[in-house]
């Protein structure tokens, strides 16, 4: 399939799932009433559509796109198809930053503290991983580094929540570890969108550098790519995307792993082409997962991470097996 056609197809898929997400909810609003209410904006139904369903659908696109794009970029930079925000610990670190911002009261004082803290957490993790993974980004070192960072971030998050003054804080750990889009508002969209947009712009510009990196660092440098600027761009861009997404939705795993993997062959494996496709694919996958949580267990807050893990973990295992056979 041609690249342009693929992008259009993915875009259409995202649009369709966006509309479907708007039409689904816990209440008895039917699809037709929902659409009417969205545009007319009257009464309680209008409030439901504008303030509850619309932010949820928007965040589905934003979070999914952020995770897909940053997954593709990190894989391109580390030259390793296993690199994704959840596995290498950036989501967990972003969650830690967010939890600290909330439970120390910084968020209550200054709303932007939330995405900034999450960004800082993610940035620290990405920088650490790029340092630990070494020049070749060999699979074993990368995975081990990711496990270490994830474990540390997860345990510190649990610690903060256990020590938090609010009695409800300890139960919150599930949200931070598995992610959810329930009960989010337009405020969360406003907090996350600027950082996600900035991160996306930075990352998409690294496409050519990442393409050249296919040949190795030396060859890329000889082609005129500034390795230092490439690394900076990838670290900052990924941090902004993962930080923004995790700050409002918790740590959702496996989107950045599955989506680039599925789309890689269709785009001809070039990182510069994979990134936009993965952005759209990630948005579609997350919207689909969020819709599924509302269909499967409408009364309960089923976590997004459960569904993405149900799809992603078998994928991950299969990829490991395949890499083992090829002797990476």
């Amino acid at each position, binding site marked *: 399939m041609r690249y342009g056609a693929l992008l259009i197809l993915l875009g259409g898929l995202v649009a369709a799932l966006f509309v479907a997400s708007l039409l689904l909810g816990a209440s008895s609003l039917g699809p037709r009433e929902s659409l009417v209410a969205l545009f007319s904006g009257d009464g309680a139904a209008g409030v439901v559509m504008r303030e509850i369903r619309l932010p949820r659908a928007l965040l589905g696109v934003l979070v999914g796109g952020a995770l897909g794009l940053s997954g593709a970029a990190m894989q391109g930079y580390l030259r390793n198809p296993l690199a994704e925000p959840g596995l290498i610990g950036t989501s967990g670190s972003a969650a830690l930053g967010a939890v600290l911002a909330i439970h120390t009261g910084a968020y209550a004082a200054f709303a932007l503290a939330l995405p900034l803290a999450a960004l800082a957490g993610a940035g620290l993790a990405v920088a650490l991983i790029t340092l630990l993974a070494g020049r070749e980004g060999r699979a074993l070192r990368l995975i081990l580094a990711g496990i270490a960072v994830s474990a540390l971030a997860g345990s510190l998050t649990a610690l903060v929540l256990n020590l938090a003054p609010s009695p409800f804080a300890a139960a919150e750990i599930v949200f931070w570890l598995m992610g959810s889009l329930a009960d989010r508002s337009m405020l969360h969209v406003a907090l996350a969108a600027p950082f996600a947009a900035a991160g996306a712009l930075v990352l998409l510009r690294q496409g050519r550098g990442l393409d050249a990196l*296919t040949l*190795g660092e030396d060859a890329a440098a000889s082609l005129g790519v500034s390795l230092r600027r490439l690394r900076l761009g990838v670290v900052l861009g990924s941090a902004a995307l993962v930080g923004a997404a995790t700050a409002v939705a918790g740590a959702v795993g496996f989107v950045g792993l599955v989506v680039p993997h599925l789309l890689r062959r269709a785009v001809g494996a070039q990182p510069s082409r994979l990134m936009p496709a993965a952005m759209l694919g990630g948005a579609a996958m997350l919207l689909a997962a969020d819709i599924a949580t509302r269909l499967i267990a409408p009364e309960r807050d089923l976590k997004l991470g459960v569904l993405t893990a149900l799809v992603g973990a078998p994928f991950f295992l299969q990829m490991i097996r395949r890499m083992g056979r090829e002797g990476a």
Partner: protein
Amino acid sequence: MTLLSLHDLSVARGPCQVLSGVRAEVRAGEVIGLLGPNGSGKTTLLRAALGLLAHGGSSSLAQMPPRARARAAAWLPQAREIAWGMPVAALVRLGRLPHGPAGAEAAVARALARMRLQDLRARSATALSGGEQARALIARALAQEAPLLLADEPIAGLDPAAQIGCMQVFAELAAAGGAVVVSLHDLGLAARHCTRLWVLHRGRLVADGAPRAVLTPGLLAEVFQIRAHFADTPDGPVFQPLALLGQ
């Protein structure tokens, strides 16, 4: 026209002096073979010349800004890394990065034709054999269409036809006004296809001249610890290492 000029080039790694005081020039039309035992500093010399390594002394290439340098010289590293299974044509097209989109398709087609890869242009690069991958990477360097080509052991592991074919491509590049510096271990091929030889021994350039003048028994003994047979035949010079020293 001088395409590369090295002045007192040296590289130190910690207390160890890996390369010291290398002085040399590359002029248009030359195919220079870079020879030396393992660990003599061949890769270091090439990378320092390109400015990819911190070095003392000067290299005309290293002083250029990255984009201009990429248009002036193409670098073919020893490690044949291909991270992703992109089509061969796309891989070769990566060499056009310093130039922008204009003329890319034509340059890629020329490079593929030169390395006889047209039939494989749509194949995934990681699905090729080792030899085919090596040729694809050379094609990438050719697509860059820079006057100077620096290649680090490009023919290692290729079959004889591919090896000779590759050296012939280098000769064609030189004949067209460019120059090639290629490091290799096959002294026979170096003698037959290179216009000049550089020999590195423990980080120093100990010889710089035509193959006949450089590959003397004395040098072979001191640098390579071998004896060899060197003869001029109707088919050109023939060089064959025979035995270790003292055997």
